[in-house]
């Protein structure tokens, strides 16, 4: 009996020991699922595993969910690197959930545009991609190409219009732009809400996630959706006739960032992962696969890829960014107002 017990204790200890070793050479990150995750693996995760011999555990979680998880795990973080696309890093850094990054430890930091690495010391990770928000539309079903944000309000489009809930980062930016062209601003979102209300009454739909947008385009005759440029490309790859048009009034940009989670013990490996994420190669790969705008000035793109993104210093400077701190400060109030507006 005792011998058996001893044996099991020893084997248990061995088991625990082996997991501890595995831990030291593995990273846990989040990714955004679907085509994004496929590209993420191809551009960063697999090359990283090959180069370092480490294993990367990927948890599929959108920014808002990922942020909720990181916040819940404050005392015992489970993620090493967390990716956000909705400005969550600003709040997370302010709450001390993220670790400041020393840019001397990132070999590629020097090549990033300034705006992409402005807040490293505060704990906000570098932006490695930019998503441009504009009009994603059905190129076959629409007789005339939409060019302006106000085209969304055309009555003939209402029943084919798909809006995205503002709990989604891109949905939020699209809504804020609609609000802006209706005469609102970040201190007053009522004009946008009124527009949304009348659009819904006229037959528009609200969806919560991007796969639902694809479903609407594929099966339910959706005509137009204010969303990200990369998504038009995703739809095209799925065999749907879709195009992207930047609205004349401006193009809101969403920064996708890779952040170092505080309180984990293999920060060096995590930094290596972030470094690889911002490299010119990884960004070219992302642009080729998904049409995201790179933030690394050394990124080389083929002409047909460059046509779909904001390429080069001048083009990138033309994007407009709604102040994420203001969005964060108002998020809960806005979501509340939005929920009331769309509730049936």
């Amino acid at each position: 009996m005792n011998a058996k017990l001893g044996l099991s204790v020893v084997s248990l200890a061995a088991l625990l020991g082996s997991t501890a070793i595995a831990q030291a050479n593995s990273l846990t990150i989040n990714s955004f699922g679907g085509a994004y995750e496929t590209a993420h693996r191809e551009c960063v995760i697999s090359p990283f595993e090959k180069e370092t011999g480490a294993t990367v555990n990927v948890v599929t979680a959108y920014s808002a969910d990922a942020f909720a998880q990181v916040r819940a795990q404050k005392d015992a973080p489970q993620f090493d690197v967390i990716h956000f696309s909705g400005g969550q890093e600003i709040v997370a850094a302010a709450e001390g959930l993220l670790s400041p990054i020393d840019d001397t430890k990132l070999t590629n930091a020097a090549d990033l545009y300034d705006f992409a690495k402005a807040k490293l010391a505060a704990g906000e990770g570098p932006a490695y991609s930019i998503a441009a928000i504009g009009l994603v539309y059905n190129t076959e079903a629409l007789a005339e190409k939409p060019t302006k944000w106000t085209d969304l309000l055309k009555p003939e489009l209402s029943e084919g219009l798909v809006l995205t809930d503002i709990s989604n980062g891109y949905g939020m930016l699209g809504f804020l732009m609609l609000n802006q062209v209706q005469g609102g601003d970040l201190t007053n979102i009522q004009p946008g809400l009124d527009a949304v209300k009348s659009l819904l009454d006229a037959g528009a739909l609200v969806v919560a996630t991007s796969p639902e947008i694809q479903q609407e385009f594929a099966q339910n005759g959706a005509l137009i959706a204010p969303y990200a440029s990369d998504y038009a490309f995703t739809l095209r790859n799925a065999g749907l006739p879709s195009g992207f048009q930047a609205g004349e009034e401006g193009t809101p940009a969403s920064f996708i960032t890779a952040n170092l989670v505080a309180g984990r013990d293999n920060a060096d490996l995590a930094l290596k992962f972030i470094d690889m994420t911002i490299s010119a190669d990884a960004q070219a790969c992302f642009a080729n696969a998904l049409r995201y705008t790179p933030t690394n000035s050394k990124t080389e793109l083929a002409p047909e890829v460059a046509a779909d993104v904001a390429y080069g210093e001048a083009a990138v400077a033309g994007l407009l960014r709604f102040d994420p701190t203001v969005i964060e400060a108002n998020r809960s109030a806005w979501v509340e107002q939005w929920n009331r507006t769309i509730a049936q």
Partner: protein
Amino acid sequence: MNDRTENLLLALPGILLLALAFLFPIGQMLILSVSGPDGFTLAPFARFLSDPYYMGVLWRTVRLSLIITIICAVIGFPLAYIMTKVGPRLRLWLVIMIILPLMTSVVIRTFGWMVMLSRSGIIPQILRDFDLVGRNFALMQTETAIVIGMVQVLLPFMTLSILGVLTRVDGRLEEAARTMGCSFLQTVRTVVLPLSLPGLVAGSLLCFTLSASSFVTPNLLGGSRIQVLAASIYRSVTSAPDWPFASAQAVILFVGILLVLIPYMKLTGGKNG
């Protein structure tokens, strides 16, 4: 070692698991729901209970759960009754047919309904072909869609609860009632229904609590425009992020379900619990 300590030791893993995985988080949730920036506060509850929008969400949750439970009972009872009457082979097939959907994930089944109920789905198509509805009619993102989906998800629970009780009812009781001159329906009403009541109540409770706290199906079929309480909690946690308010909503849901359970426990006196 006497019997008592032995029993206690045997029960210990279960008790520990419950404490860690259930009591502790629930306790944390309760604490979080009444903690404001400066100590104890009931503000989140006041905000919920004084707001027509949130009371509407609560009322919709209760209303839909009741409708779903009633429909499940109306379909489930005859189904279970038939299953006790047929031969063993057919009964086996019927049981398999009822249990089979439980082998697939709720999410997958819900996606199935999404395909069928959407604007170009088969059900709106058929209704359109018969000119019963307009061109843009869709069942998706309506309360009807939630009810249809939830009934399909919860029916097995109801049927199996009733079946468990009905199989133990002595068939001779019905025969006796028939010889006394009862019609079939009278027999069902005066003999079978009262005897199957414990199963019906248990099944209804299961259906009610599961649908009141369900999240995936209402969220996917109802969309973000039709909020139920579980989805509202989720939004408060992830997109607002307002955890004290989310906890308060969770406590309200929890207490609401508890209120439904207590009369049941009183009713059955622990006999069939």
